[in-house]
């Protein structure tokens, strides 16, 4: 596997060296990763990347910087990681690439989004995933539930890991599920909510898995969710704030994102359901007084999201968007705490899951 990834990089290098040899402007074909080359596949219900490619040239003022960055990252992946058998984080790669070109004021990269982008491009060019190129994201997120896994030779019982739970590694490919007795998975946007549920032993009472990350849903978590769903047919429920951002998180897990459209195959979970909180919950559980007024950006985002292809024709979702607009407010999950600290564990979730009150 490692050698294959290395081969791919070397052949990219040889192609470019040949261009130089022949006096041609060195150029790399990169699949275009913009909205225009991403389409929603109604059959698989996933965002998929199209075939359109664009040439990235060295002697081109508009391309040169990205060109150099892509090659820099390729060099790092080959020489520092694959050749050495080492793994690095995205942040590591950024620092490995970050330097000033001698005799100039130009930095190869100025901030991490640039190396991150270059790595994603390299994934597309080589057809090997970031993890296969030995680049990992940081660990982020916790899980607890009645599951036993094996990771790097250790057997881990997700139900016996104290108050912190098991922290999810960035690369979950090597994990093997030994025993899965949980019936479903709740993924929550907020670590604080996870802590609440964990303290209340919700996963034990309800025989489920609770999973969260710090804010953004990392690839590793998405992949873990996807594997739990695919390999053990567990339903996945999303618990997020009732705001455009929470809904966006749901949307990404479900259909994938434009940025990572090339990974949708292994990351997207079209059958995932939105558990809450919903506009209806606000009324049902009398949370109106905890409204947070929508800002201008929120309204913009709401408008964008409501026009996503997979939301556009969904009446229930359009109803939710309308509710949010009418409230002119967003609501956090923690608003439920106003009804008592264990209200979410004792009443809200059991009721919602019991009634299967979910949005698709």
């Amino acid at each position, binding site marked *: 596997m490692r050698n294959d990834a290395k081969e791919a*990089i*070397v052949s*990219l*290098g*040889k192609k*470019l*060296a040949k261009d*130089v*040899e022949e*006096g041609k*402007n*060195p150029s790399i074909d990169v699949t*275009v990763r*913009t*909205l225009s080359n991403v389409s929603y596949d109604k059959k698989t219900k996933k965002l998929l990347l199209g075939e359109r490619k*664009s040439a*990235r040239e*060295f*002697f*081109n*003022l*508009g*391309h*040169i910087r*990205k*060109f*150099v960055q892509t*090659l*820099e990252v*390729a*060099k790092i992946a*080959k*020489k520092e990681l694959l050749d050495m058998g080492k793994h690095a*984080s*995205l*942040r590591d790669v950024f620092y490995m690439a970050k330097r000033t*070109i*001698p*005799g*100039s004021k*130009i930095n*190869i990269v100025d901030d*991490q*989004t640039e190396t*991150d982008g270059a790595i994603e491009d390299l994934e597309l060019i080589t057809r090997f995933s970031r993890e296969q190129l030995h680049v990992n*994201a*940081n660990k*982020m997120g916790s899980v607890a539930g009645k599951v036993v896994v094996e990771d790097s030779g250790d057997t881990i019982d997700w139900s016996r890991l104290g108050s912190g739970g098991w922290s999810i590694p960035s690369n979950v490919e090597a994990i093997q599920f030994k025993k899965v007795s949980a019936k479903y998975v709740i993924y929550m946007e907020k670590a604080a909510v996870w802590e609440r549920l964990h303290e209340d032993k919700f996963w034990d009472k309800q025989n489920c898995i609770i999973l969260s990350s710090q804010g*953004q*849903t*990392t*690839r590793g978590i998405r992949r873990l969710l996807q594997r739990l769903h695919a390999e053990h047919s567990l339903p996945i429920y999303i618990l997020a704030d009732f705001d455009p*951002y929470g809904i*966006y998180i749901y949307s990404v897990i479900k259909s994938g*994102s*434009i*940025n*990572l459209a090339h990974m949708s195959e292994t990351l997207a979970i079209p059958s995932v359901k939105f558990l809450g909180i919903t506009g209806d919950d606000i009324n049902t559980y009398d949370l109106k007084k905890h409204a947070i007024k929508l800002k201008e950006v929120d309204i913009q*985002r709401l408008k*964008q999201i409501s026009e996503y292809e997979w939301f556009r024709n969904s009446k229930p979702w359009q109803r939710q968007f309308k509710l949010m607009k009418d409230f002119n407010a967003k609501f956090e999950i923690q608003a439920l705490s106003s009804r008592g600290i264990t209200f979410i564990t004792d009443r809200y979730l059991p009721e919602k899951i019991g009634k299967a009150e979910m949005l698709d």
Partner: protein
Amino acid sequence: MAETQQELAAYELAKKQREISIAEFFEKNRHLLGFDNKRKALLTAVKEAVDNSVEYHEPVLVKDKGLIKVVKIGEYIDRKLKESEITEREDAQSAKISGVETLVYDSKTLKLGFKAVSSVHRHPLRDKLYEITIVGNRKVKLTGSHSIFALKQGRVTPYKVSELKEGDFVVVPRKQFRNPDPVRFLDIRDWAKNLPAELRERLVIKGVSSTLTNIPRDWKRFDYVPLSYFTDNHLALPESARIGVKLGRSSIPVRITITHELMRLLGYYAAEGTCYDQCITLSFGAHEEALMQDAEKCIKDTFPNANFTRILAHRTAITIKIHSEILSCLFKGLGTGSRANTKKVPTIVFNAESDMQSSFLQGYISGDGHVGSKITMATVSKDLSTGLKYLFSMQGIPFSESVREETVRDFGKYISKCKKVYYIYVYPSSGRRNSPLNWLPLEESGFRQIIKSLDPKIGTLNPHYRMISRPTFTFESANADLRLAQSNRRGQITEALQQRIEHTEKLLAGEIGFLQVRTVKEATSSREHVYDFSVPGEEKFLGGEGVIFLHNSLDACEEARILPEVKVEIIEMSEERYRVIVEDNGPGIVKEQIPKVFAKLLYGSKFHHLQQKRGQQGIGISAAVLYSQLTTGKPAKITSRIGKNQPASYYELNIDIKANKPEIVKQSTTDWAKEQGTIVELELQATYQKGLQSVDEYLKQTAIINPHITIIYTTPKAEQIIYARSTEELPPEPKEIKPHPYGVELGLLIRMLDNTESRTLQSFLTSEFSRVGPETAKEICHNSSLLPSTKPQEISRQQAEQLMNGIASTKLIAPSTDCLSPISEQLIEKGLRSVINAEFYCSTARPPAVYRGNPFVISAGVAYGGQVPEGAVTLLRFANRVPLLYQQGACVITDAIGKTNWKQYGLSQSQGAVPAGPAVILVHMASVWVPFTSEAKEALAHYPEIIKEIKLALQECGRKLGLYINKKKKATRQLERANLFETYIPEIADSLATITGQSKEELLAKLKTMLNKPEIEAQIEKQENPQFDEKMKLELGKEEENEE
């Protein structure tokens, strides 16, 4: 009416007080000296001797009574102060001197020449002392606020030592300086006076006794006449006479022609000689036969009668001994020094013709120099090394130096002590071209820019111009390149470029060179005083161990024409208590008027005169006195002098608050060195702060808008800030006109009616106002429903209002505009340049316009880039040359700036706001009647005519600014593109080599050749912004995986 007469006299006087007399200065400070709060501005007088000075031991080149000398500045000035009448100011002493000149370069032609020193100064060292080291290890010690000339942005201007940075280029002589009237003879009268008295008394003149009568018989008998006989009786010495020592055998002519042989001999002496009482010796190595023969030839040719012998001192050394007591006297008199460590370059050498100086150097170098690729000279005499350096400088020969400290080496059996050695190195003539002295700094001189403007492709694509990659370039090849670039130039050369070319040609033709500063270090002095020269006109002198042009102190009043100079000093007495001293060199105040001017509120109102004035009401200074009295109880101390024939008057004054009368606490006449001027000293409760509305800012802005004034300001923190005048052009004196009826307000009208001497309303109108004739006056009366024959004093308030309305409804001719003293475009620019360090300046002055019958003139200026900070643009608002610091938001100037579209001129700006960018915008309004929004006089009122004029002025500046910014942006963009590929090539080659294992060098070479392909060149010259393929990327919130 005696009182009125006096008042008129006072007014007449005030009128003469051009620009910035104390009274007016304070008057205008009223808004800083707000009496309601303690955030207060405080003003002052500064010590006469300014703190910019040179350390005691530093040598300087002077021409004293026609003789060029290199002297220690401290020793020299101490002596001058002893000889002259000293002006003492606090702890500093100054003296006017005459007959002394120093070597300067002409600011216009950059040629070397002598210029008179007008005075010398000494004061205790208060400031930090710095030692500057430049290329060649040349050094000078100066105080931090002393300035030194440096080349920046194509200009040679003085920079404070404390602001000088490593890498700056300072000015030194480059070309040979030919003394216009060289000394050709050694004359007994010149050298004998340098001898100690007991030796001088022994000198006798031979061969003249027979021509004299009435002299002692002994003199005739032994044919000698003491030299003192001639000097005491002022008798001429016959040229044929000879001079000897009493009882001595040898003699020399009283007048010796300076020859190459004499100079070489002096050179040999400086290298090898020792001077004893009875003889002189020169020591050579036994192998230096040729040298000895030449030395002997020199002795024989110069002093045919001298008796000398060779002595084998030891196996390898031979000494030539000249047995002549008179020759020993001569050498002592010439100041050659007697021993190795006291050797000097004799003064006569500096004054001899240039080729004679060469002979001296030739003698010295053959004796003491080691000739290799460089010539190395070593001496244990510091004075000799200093003299040699000055001599090389005068010869236009680049030199460098070093010092080896005293060392003691222990060899076990014996200890070897090596004295401190001063080394000087020069290139043989063939190598001098390579000396940094002959290099023109390409960037700083603006030369590179010019070449690039002439031929923009230079250096990026055209390998012919190798120069572009080098930081410096010799003057010679610069000349050639300039000509080449000019001839290559296609198309028109703009006027601005032509001017810069001419400027550069001058630089190339000049006789000064530029050497880079290596280090600027704090230094110490064993002396408590530091010293300075005043050189009016050029304000520089040649000095320092490193032989550098130094900037001298600013001494304005020396010139026949008095240019205004204001000194402001604020001393912190305790927290919230300050002493403010303001001193000017204005026309002073008549003794009798002093109490009233300073201690009577509302004195000297000027309401019936209309003339542009810095101040407009007489409340200021006396209010300040009152404030001081109320808060500290201390009287105001005033010293004023109106001319050299009058003594200075001194007063201590309080205000009798009940009667509004001056209360004289103390009165006397006093001595004051200045011929005219005023000092006001007040003590008051206040707080000192920095920032936009501070005394500091007020004075800075005053300096900008009054470039003809020098302001010396000492802050409560004892820092001294000097705003030197940047022009000597005084503003034209405004003409006085009578008020125009449209500009008069009710209160003023009532006062005028009360005070007029006219008997009828009609004659009041015609005599007190401009543009009102008898017919117009009648019309006004008619429109006001008042009888033309009404007595002015009997007009009631209500009738006065009627009169106002009548004036408003009568059509009148606009007033003439020659009552204004607007400031010209050039002066605005100069003012900005002298205080704000920017890279671009422009200015404009509008023709006169009229609002409500009042003539006014708007001028504006912009300074951009350089060290101007980013962020909201700084506004400088002025009315009649007075800065407006408060209420910026309420001012019409702010409004007009907001209403001007600056985006099109390259600054960013949100709708209607003050623009943002590294710029300073200045607007000045000159008017006889400035429409302030309130009595506080802090902001100008909104009149459509004024807004329009300001906008027009700003737009004119804006267009110039826009051109500059655009050009700059375009140039940067092209250069960046050109460099971009070149910069990235090694990176890409390295990456590819690492990935594929191929040779990096081959890839590198291949890629470089591709640079010259036409399609790639086309990319460089492409005008539009590069199109990024990322452009279409839709921002869908945060990136998913942007982990920290």
